[in-house]
């Protein structure tokens, strides 16, 4: 088990967003988190690498424990978040590539700044990851010269360049043209086959059903139901799950 989340709670301005969520993540898993908009999926994901903090409960990510900064202090929270982010990569809905850097530089900046990896080494690795996501020829382009699908693949390569042990995806295909969705999903599928642990907040039900090892259905800040795709899609137990999935039939 690489990560364990126990009973986390979080509110924004007194409005509860996470209402006691617990989840264990096993190495090599591809976990798909599904659920209606505003159910707390994204916030849950952002809590895992400390981009958001939880109010209650605790997370243990690769042996580092994270809980509310009120308990451990803001400085300590930041320190632990930084340790966790060394092993946890993240891919955003809007790609968030750095527009002032080329694709290659996008991949090289963090290894250089955070790990002090030499230019030659990080350059070679960056090219390797770009080739892996099929962007070997785009190294010297700027993000805005790429299509959405290409940008998202570049963002995945950027995350991979930091050699994470788990990748978190926050609706990675929601901002893409339907025609471009598959090229991104293909990369995720390939990574899954190579044994990467991944956690995806997604609305791509077919992808979730076909590729995920575990489906987590969330609603109103709670995990309503989770299990292998056959179970969730084939035989959902909870009324809310059934309702939600009906839209996607």
């Amino acid at each position, binding site marked *: 088990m690489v990560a364990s989340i126990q009973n986390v709670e979080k509110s924004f301005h007194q409005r509860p967003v996470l209402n006691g969520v617990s989840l264990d993540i096993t190495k090599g898993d591809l976990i798909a988190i599904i659920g209606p908009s505003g159910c707390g999926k994204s916030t849950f994901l952002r809590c895992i690498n400390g981009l958001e903090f939880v109010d209650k409960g605790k997370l243990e990510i690769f042996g580092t424990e994270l809980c509310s900064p009120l308990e451990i202090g803001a400085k300590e929270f930041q320190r632990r978040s*930084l340790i966790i982010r060394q092993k946890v990569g993240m891919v955003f809905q809007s790609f968030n590539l750095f*527009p002032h850097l080329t694709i290659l530089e996008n991949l090289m900046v963090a290894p250089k700044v955070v790990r002090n990896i030499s230019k030659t080494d990080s350059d070679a690795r960056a090219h390797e990851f770009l080739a892996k996501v099929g962007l070997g020829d785009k190294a010297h382009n700027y993000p805005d010269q790429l299509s959405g699908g290409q940008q998202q693949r570049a963002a995945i390569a950027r995350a991979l360049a930091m050699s994470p042990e788990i990748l978190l995806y926050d609706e990675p295909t929601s901002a893409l043209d339907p025609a471009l969705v598959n090229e991104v999903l293909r990369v995720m599928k390939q990574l899954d086959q190579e044994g990467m642990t991944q956690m995806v907040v997604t609305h791509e039900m077919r992808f979730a059903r076909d590729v995920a090892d575990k489906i987590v259905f969330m609603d109103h800040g709670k995990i309503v139901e989770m299990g292998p795709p056959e179970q969730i899609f084939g035989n959902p137990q909870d009324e809310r799950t059934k309702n939600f999935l009906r839209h996607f039939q």
Partner: protein
Amino acid sequence: MMKIFIFVILFFHFNASFAQKPKLRWGADIESGAPFSYTDPADHKTVIGFEVEIVELLAKEMGMEVEYVQNSWDGLIAGLNRNDYDIVVNGLEITPDRAQVVHFSKPYYYTSESLVVRASNTNVATLDDLKNKRVGTLDGSLAQRILNQLTFPLTVVGYDEEIHSYSDLVIGRLDAVLLDEAIALYYAKPNIELKVVGGPIGYMEYGVVTRLNDPKFSRRVDAALEKIIENGSVQRILEKWNLWNAMSAKAWGKSAEPLTPPVAYDKYISEAWKKETIVQKLKRYASFLPLLGKGAIMTLEISTISMVLAMILGLLTALARLYGHPVVKWLAVAYVEVFRGTPLLIQLYLIFYGLPYVGLTLDPFVAAVLGLGLNYGSCEAENYRAGILSIPKTQMDAAQALGMNWFQSLRHIILPQAVKVVIPPVTNDFIALLKDSSLVSVISMVELTTVYGQLASSSFDYLGLGLLTALVYFVIGLPFVRLARYFESQLANNLPGEQRTRRARPKLFIF
């Protein structure tokens, strides 16, 4: 004739070779013009005038050597009390108010006010004729006080350059001008369109000014002055400049008839009032260029150093305001609001003349840079803040998700993008600062505008010199506009793909 080199660099050479005698640091504003202290129209590098000669005599009598320190006239007493120089001899009238804060010697010159009207005017001969008239004078002068005390209605217009009041009189904006006898003699009498009417009005005495806190030195100055008055040297200087008058004669028990011819006055009139051909005019402009050039270099020096200070201060303030602890944030906001919300001129006065009262006396250059830097720092802070806020928050998320800490994210991801956004407003501010640097002439810095004032007051060519100086400002600002445009184009990476050339990226980060 005594020669004083205006430029500090020349001063140092001068001092290094003849530095045996102690220095008598003399504060004056050579913009005050003839016959007091002014740049020689024939040789712009030297200062001449009857006060220059009196100070030189005084120094000789005291076994000292004159070192001239430029300051604006309004700041002369403040500069003396700041210890920027040791004496002031520059048309300072002895008044009870001033005697509260400085020591005055016995008068070295007694004089009065003269009423001047257009040559065609036959209605005005005395003060009583000024009812319902527009009368010009110098701000803060005895003449202004006399006019303000008149009981009938009239409009008093205050000027800060005597020459402007007379030119307004010529073109009919004024009906009369009341100014010091010496000024009327030099600026109105030679003009055939003007005439001096009536007799002397009022009474005033010019004194040598020293600090109150050094009575021993003041006594030495007084004794030396008394000596050169007694032996007739001062009288000869006054005669030479056509200033010997009945009042001074009476005060010193001499005859009002001059003993020597007014050679300096005649020379001044022949030079200052001669008609020039275009070639002569162009030659004269060319002769101004070295002085204007040096002023421009000083302006550039002050401006660039101030701007660097402003940019550093601005960045730190913007970061403090965006990310700081609440107390730091509050301080940053207070700094921005105070320095952006008060006039630069007042800030300069406070820094240069105000701080000495709390024990901090700054060098004029340091005060100028600090004043401009602090003022523009508050503007830059807002530029940077806007620039940083214009970068989507998701960029910070992405950088942090990659394991960068807050500072690394800021330095490598946020600021390089923000810089691009703020280059146009920052360039704009730099050009504004370049022009605002003219204000530091009030704290005794000799920069471009000071040079303009000094040259204009001795040549009266306000139009030609004004245009020439404006041109110099324009020219020195141009390279910075070009440079900014260059950086902007180098950093512009949000153009559509086809328009953007593939080239090596220049490394232009703030850090």
